[in-house]
Every structure is written in structure tokens, then in C-alpha cells.
């Protein structure tokens, strides 16, 4: 059934985007935009694949992918928080750095075999018609993503850590008053965000494509950044949006395998077109949902 295939494909393909977008959410909720997400994903993909290949353990690969993403994001945190560098310029530069580094050091792993995650159908649930195939016949990393978004939503809303992070993004001054360091909280948020993006990249390499190839994230990091705006900085909406964009990417092959022509390029731009439409329609109102401190970064728009 076409719908089932597209939805199942959306879950498969949306997982990497979701991890990266959740990471961007963490970062932006603390008040820092990281346009280097694509670079973090690439480092995560290579780090994850390389460590899985060397150790024979895909779980270690996943951890390594997260660590690699965190490392690149740490540079961002250092420059942006400590040196007050421009967030957009630094992020973009890091994206290029990630692309360059992984192309350079990744060549040895192109075509290299590495153990990866295989689908593990969930007993009983996997046999439910439609939902079983869409949700419960995937690899463990995909299941991890099911939990990640609600867990993050809960953490942000209901824990002290979440409160501190949100305050760093909304009223940094208030943190000072209470003896906290907003800079430190932001830096930690950026690093954690990078780790999630790295996890997304590692998922792509070890659970989805089962290969490493330079530039293999193919813009998914930018989809993630766009998605966070689209999802108004809310983890559960990020989850829904990731699967929606994943389904958009899965629609072309599903139709083609049935003999219909559909231009892949048209669907590839869909996430960006949707985001642009939202930005165009809502304009400044987009920022209503944005964390206060982030709004300051965004509101550098030229005055009319």
C-alpha cells in the first residue's frame, strides 16, 4: 500500500533529521543558533561509521558519532559564548569545516564494511495492520528516536535543568541574579545539541544507508535547522515535522517503484519551501514563539 510505504519511509528517513532538529532545538532554546548542524551530522556519520568499522560494535559507533558532533559544536560554543562571535558566520564556517574534514579523513572508510543496526520488529506490535509496519519494524535507533522527542519535551518543561536552559534563552539576566552562569548553560546546550546532530548523522550511516560517503547528509542538517522554526521550537512538533519531511523524501521512490514519474528534485526542496512560506506568511510573527534571547539575534533585520 502506497500510504504505508510512504509513512514507513518517512519514519526511516525522518529519524536522522529528527535527532539533528532536536539538537538544534536544545541549542536555540538556550539562545544560540547553530547553522553548523550539517557539519555536526557529517562528523557524526563518519565518526559513527568509522568506530563501528574499527570496533565491530554499532552502539559504540553511535556514541562516537555523538561525541564527534559534540566536539564540532564545542568550537561553536567557544566562539559564540566566550568570544561573542557572530552565530551565523561561525555556524556556516563550521559547516564547511565539517564537510572538509570528513571528506579528507573519510576517504579510507568509503566502501569499507562496518556492522550496522538491523531492523528488530517489536513483538506483537509489529503485527498490527498499517501501524505495525509504519512504526514497529525498524532498527533500535529509530525506536530510540520515538522516546527522544517526548523525553526532551518533558525535560525542558518539568526539570530544573530544563528550566535553567529555557531561562538562558528567555531571560539570561535572571540567571545572573540567581548566581547561575547563562554562558555556561548555553555552551552546554550547544554541545548537547551537537551531540544529538552527531547521533543523527551516525544513524544515517550505521542504521539507514549502511555506508559512509562524503557529503552523505546531503543537506539534512539544513532541513533540521529550517524545521526548528517550522516547529516553533517545540520537540513534539519537531518530531511530527521530521516524519513529514521524511515522508516527502520517501514519496518519490515509493511512486517510482509503482511506475509513476515524480521529480525527486521537486520533493527535495519541499522542506525549504514550506519553511519559506511560513516565514513569508508569518513574517515577524514567526518570532513570537522564539526564545527571547534568540529573538535578539534574529532581529538584526534591516529597518525600513
Amino acid at each position, binding site marked *: 500500500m502506497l500510504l504505508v510505504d510512504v509513512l514507513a519511509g518517512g519514519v526511516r528517513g525522518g529519524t536522522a533529521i529528527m535527532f539533528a532538529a532536536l539538537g538544534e532545538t536544545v541549542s536555540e532554546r538556550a539562545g544560540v543558533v547553530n547553522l553548523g548542524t550539517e557539519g555536526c551530522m557529517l562528523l557524526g556519520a563518519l565518526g559513527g561509521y568509522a568506530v563501528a568499522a574499527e570496533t565491530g560494535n554499532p552502539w559504540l559507533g553511535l556514541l562516537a558519532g555523538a561525541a564527534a558532533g559534540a566536539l564540532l559544536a564545542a568550537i561553536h560554543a567557544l566562539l559564540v559564548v566566550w568570544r561573542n562571535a557572530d552565530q551565523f*558566520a561561525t555556524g556556516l564556517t563550521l559547516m564547511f569545516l565539517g564537510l572538509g574534514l570528513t571528506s579528507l579523513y573519510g576517504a579510507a572508510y*568509503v*566502501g569499507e564494511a562496518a556492522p*550496522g543496526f538491523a531492523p528488530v520488529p517489536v513483538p506483537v506490535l509489529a503485527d498490527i495492520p498499517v501501524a505495525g509496519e509504519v512504526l514497529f519494524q525498524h532498527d533500535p535507533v529509530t525506536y530510540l528516536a520515538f522516546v527522544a522527542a517526548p523525553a526532551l519535551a518533558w525535560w525542558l518543561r518539568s526539570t530544573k535543568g530544563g528550566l535553567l536552559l529555557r531561562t538562558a534563552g528567555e531571560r539570561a539576566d535572571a540567571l545572573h541574579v540567581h548566581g547561575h552562569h547563562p554562558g555556561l548553560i548555553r555552551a552546554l546546550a550547544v554541545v548537547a545539541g551537537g551531540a544529538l546532530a552527531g547521533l543523527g548523522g551516525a544513524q544515517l550511516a550505521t542504521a539507514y544507508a549502511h*555506508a559512509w560517503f562524503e557529503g552523505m547528509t546531503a543537506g539534512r542538517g539544513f532541513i533540521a535547522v529550517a524545521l526548528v522554526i517550522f516547529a516553533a521550537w517545540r520537540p513534539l512538533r519537531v518530531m511530527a515535522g521530521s516524519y513529514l519531511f521524511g515522508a516527502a523524501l520517501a514519496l518519490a*521512490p*515509493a511512486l517510482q517503484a509503482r511506475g509513476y514519474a515524480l521529480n525527486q528534485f521537486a520533493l527535495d526542496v519541499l522542506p525549504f519551501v514550506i519553511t519559506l512560506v511560513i516565514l513569508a506568511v508569518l513574517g515577524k510573527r514567526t518570532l513570537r514563539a522564539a526564545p527571547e534571547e534568540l529573538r535578539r539575534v534574529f532581529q538584526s533585520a534591516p529597518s525600513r
Partner: protein
Amino acid sequence: MRKIIVIGAAALLAAACSANTAGTPQADTSAAGGAAVAPGKDATKVGFIFVGPKDDYGYNQAAYQGSQEVAKAFPDMEVLTAENVPEDDNAARVMNSMIAKGAKIIFATSYGHLDAALKVAAEHPDVAVVQQGNLITGTPPKNAGTFFGTVYEPVYLAGIAAGRATKSNKLGYVYAFPISQTLDNINAFHLGARSVNPKVETYTVNTSSWCDPAKQAEATANLLKQGVDVITQHQDCTATVIKATEAAGKYTVGYHADASSIAPKGWLTGSQWNWGPLYTDIVKTARSGGFTGSKYNANFRVGYKTGENPFVQSPYGPAVDEETKKLIEKARQDIAKGSPFAGPVVDQKGEVRIPEGTIPDYETIEKIDYFVSGVVGTLPKS
């Protein structure tokens, strides 16, 4: 500090952008008036440009290996190579810089390098420029040509193995773009399979990318969902499709390289490159001063009929039986006299495109712009 970083980033961006749009540098003046010199004669340096990395386990790696065989065959020559050369004006820039270093023979090894190659050839009449895989329309300049194997011939033979192996009578083909080379491959694969299995259908999915492993994973998943049980591909990086097919317990037909190590159970056979002998002969011809007017100063194609095809069949996997191997051997001999596209060839609409009894020439085959009957899929408009 903030300013420095902004400026630095801006400079980086500017560099990245200009690299994509940079015009060709001025023509090397030393070439002016050199028309009397035979292109590539007594060359001491030869340049190769590749569109991808030299270790992609695919098209570019094969071309790179070919260049290294040239180095071995001519120890007195220096072989210059450049990886990841895009199919735009950058290619002309890279070729020009090789010529500035003294290269007198240039191999532009990707389909999309042709425009840049012809531009460079026009600027340097003393340099022999050959392009791999595309076609020059009209009469080629005296110092340029294209060359290729008849890629679709071993693909046809592999199709026989696929047609014999399938139980669902559904084959799958993952491809990048509907260029003529790819259409020939898909059609030949299907015709080969159909020659031994009249019920077979070939399902196609295109990824609009020479290498996007995630899209390949999705394409493969969808083909498998359609009940396809033999999958092949025309992609630059091939591991994702092969691994996914093997994991599903289905059969794989390879392309570009012998990947049987990652599909020990499902590997049937495949097609792979062996560029060394052809590259070496082109260099030999040019160095002797005889490039102009030679067979390489044209759209040179070589197949089972005319000589040593640089595209050869990969070793068989365990699932291929003796009877199949015999059928393939017989077909190979038939192709040497005829063609995988010997008429009648009927397209998807039922229209006869190559009439019965006609054996089309290489150029006709390379201009095929339709799927043959039995291929499932609609050509994307690109």
C-alpha cells in the same frame, strides 16, 4: 575578534562561491600558433580528471586505476590526477592548470566534463583532449575525441543471470539520471533477462544523485516492497543498495566493481571496468603524433564485436548455476556478431523502435531515449 571571524567567514564563503563560478583563465599563450604540432606528440605528462574521489569503489576508482596503469606502461611519463572535479567551468580550470604544468594529453573522465574538455581543446591545439563516455556532436576538432566501452553488453549478460535467478519475475534497477548510458543499461539488463525469462519485468527508481546513500536505501526498500528479488543499479557508490539487498536475502547484480565480498550469498555477477589497456593505447597513439585522424579523434566505441571491451563481466557468485553460465557464454558469442539491441526492439508504448533483422550501430544505441517494453517506470523529465 567578532569582526575578524565575520570577515573570515565571509571570505571563506566568497571563496566557495567564486570557486563555482570562476571563469576559465586566459588561454596559455604558448599554445598560439602551435597548430602545426601534432596534439600530444612526445608528451612527457598526461593529466586525468575525475568527478569523484579516487577510492569510491566505483566509476572514479576504476578510472583512477586505469591512470595508474598508464603510469606503469610509460615509466618516462608523469601522470597528473585531480579528484572531485565538478562538471562545470572548474573542470576547464583544472585541465588548464595541468596543461600549464606541461601535460600534453588530457583525459576528462566524467560524462559532464565534455563541454569544458572541448573548450580546453579549442584553446590548446597542441594538446590531445579525450573525454570518457559522452558524444561530440558533429565533426570533432583535430585534437579531441570521446571514447567508451559498450557498457551495456556485459550488463545484458548479467541480465541473463538475473532473469534466471528471479522467482518473482520482478527485477529492480536503482539509477541516478535518465542519461543515454543509463537507459542503455536498464534496457539491456531487461532484454538480457527477458531472453531467458519472457515473464520478467524490471522496476526502476531514480535517485537524482550519483551518490546519496540515504536515497538509495529508500529506493531499495521500495523495490523490495514491490516484490523485486534481484536488484542492480547505476550509481557511483554502490554499497548501500547491495547491503540492503543482501540483508533482505535477495540477489544482487553489481556495477562498476566486484562487490561480492559484501554480498556473499546473493551476489550473481556484475559488470566492472578495466580501463588500463584502452587508456594506454590512447596515450601511445597521441605520443606517436598520430592522434589526428586516428580512431580516437572521433566518438570511439569498442565492444565485443570490435575488440577488447573495457567493461568486463564480474566473477560469478554461488547462486549462478552451470546452465546459466552456458547461456551467458552463448549470448556473449551472439553479441560479438550482433547486438543486445538486435531488432525487434519495442518500447513501452508498443512501438517498434528497431525493426526485426536490424543490428543497430553503437551511435544509434547511445541515442536511445526510451524504456523498452517490460520496463516498469516513467522517465523523469529532467
